[in-house]
């Protein structure tokens, strides 16, 4: 077998694929949050729409977008593969199994948080991405402002952001452990950076969501 495929199909290799794709997706979150901050500007969404136009029109960004989709699919399918294989490694279940005494809640919930994350992602893309890229609408900022005037939508987003935080709480440090970088020396540094990803970034998205719900109602009324 080709050495690369042998590597990527080994138990360690599969985990490394999980780790690298997860890290790239985490980096995307930084860009996403930075872009979303434009929604806070008091300019009827002009700056955000210009940003959205750039993201939709630039060929390099569009290519990266396809790459991002590929990374998401790799992360999902590799994760499902690992899940099925790991499930098969124990053919008979324990009658009594106190995993909760030895592990964190987030690590035990990875599959559930992944499934909820995916559900959120589909709804999220249907709500915004679909309108911007497929229907070719230009005033995405107004779409965002009006969408987040619905309380149930805000609640769904906030709940989903908690799920994202849960997934990254285990996932982020796990990615470094898999790459062999979580050594005694760097453990505290990695745990510190991890807080940015599992808490600060989801909290940033949540802040924007709540801010729009509270203060951008006027912008919607004005547009109408």
């Amino acid at each position, binding site marked *: 077998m080709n*050495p690369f495929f042998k*590597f990527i199909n*080994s*138990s*360690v290799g*599969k*985990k*490394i694929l999980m780790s690298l794709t997860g890290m790239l997706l985490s980096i995307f979150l930084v860009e996403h949050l930075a872009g979303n901050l434009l929604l806070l500007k008091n300019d009827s969404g002009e700056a955000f729409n210009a940003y959205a136009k750039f993201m939709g029109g630039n060929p390099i960004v569009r290519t990266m977008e396809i790459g991002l989709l590929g990374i998401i699919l790799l992360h999902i399918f590799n994760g499902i593969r*690992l899940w099925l*294989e*790991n499930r*098969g*490694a*124990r*053919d*008979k*279940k*324990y*009658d*009594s*199994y*106190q*995993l909760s*005494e*030895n*592990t*964190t809640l987030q*690590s*035990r919930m*990875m599959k559930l948080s992944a499934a909820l994350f995916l559900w959120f992602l589909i709804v999220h893309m249907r709500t915004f991405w679909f309108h911007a890229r497929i229907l070719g609408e230009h005033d995405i900022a107004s779409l965002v402002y009006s969408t987040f005037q619905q309380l149930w939508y805000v609640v769904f987003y906030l709940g989903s952001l908690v799920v994202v935080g849960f997934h990254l709480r*285990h996932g982020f*440090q*796990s990615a470094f*452990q*898999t*790459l*062999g*970088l*979580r*050594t*005694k020396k760097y453990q505290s540094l990695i745990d510190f950076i991890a807080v940015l990803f599992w808490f600060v970034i989801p909290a940033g998205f949540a802040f924007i969501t709540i801010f729009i719900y509270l203060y951008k109602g006027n912008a919607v009324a004005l547009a109408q």
Partner: protein
Amino acid sequence: MNLTLKVWRQKDKNDEGRFIEYSAKNISPDMSFLEMLDIVNIDLVKKGETPIVFDHDCREGICGSCGMMINGRAHGPGRGIATCQLHMRSFADDDEIVIEPWRAKSFPVLKDLMVDRTSFERIMRSGGYTSAKTGGIPDGNSILVPKPVADEAFDAAACIGCGACVAACPNSSAMLFVSAKVSQLALLPQGQAERETRVQRMVAQMDEEKFGSCSNTYACEAECPKGISVVHIARLNREYITAQL
């Protein structure tokens, strides 16, 4: 102490197996868990029944023979102990204790609480050795090993191969065991000759034995009777990556 035991009984590899309840009466809190099972077994023999089969040897926590899932914990409650070092004072009077064998596809149950751990042997055979020079005896201290490195290698070498890591892991992964062996030999100068082939072969054998993949829950570290740290898993990952280059 009087206890109710719910013990997994299985005649042989092909038997389906089932839980059977036993009562353990007049147990001293100072007995070890294995001594408690001995008392139960004496009663069973007196009654003409087959005693509960379990692995055991040194009974002082160094051989790695004993091991069972006690109330859902590998080697029972408590940290850093094998089943033989677990004392009955860890339980309360009239407790019900569920006793099961290690559960993993790679550890088939042979009888009752005894599992076949030769998959570990095969992993060791695939790379857990070093090349040794034959001939004259080398001078003492001719190979220098810095103290911190020796300590780190020794921490990994403390692994007794009991299989609690696999048993405790939600994925039945053997990464803590394999990483302890890879880490120990990768740290020492004696292990350098096979450094790259060792990690590749041992991981390949581990995969062939159908152990699960590590998902970094660290349940293994918590249950390891020798407190082997997951930093060794990080080192194995590092060794595995650099071995590809």
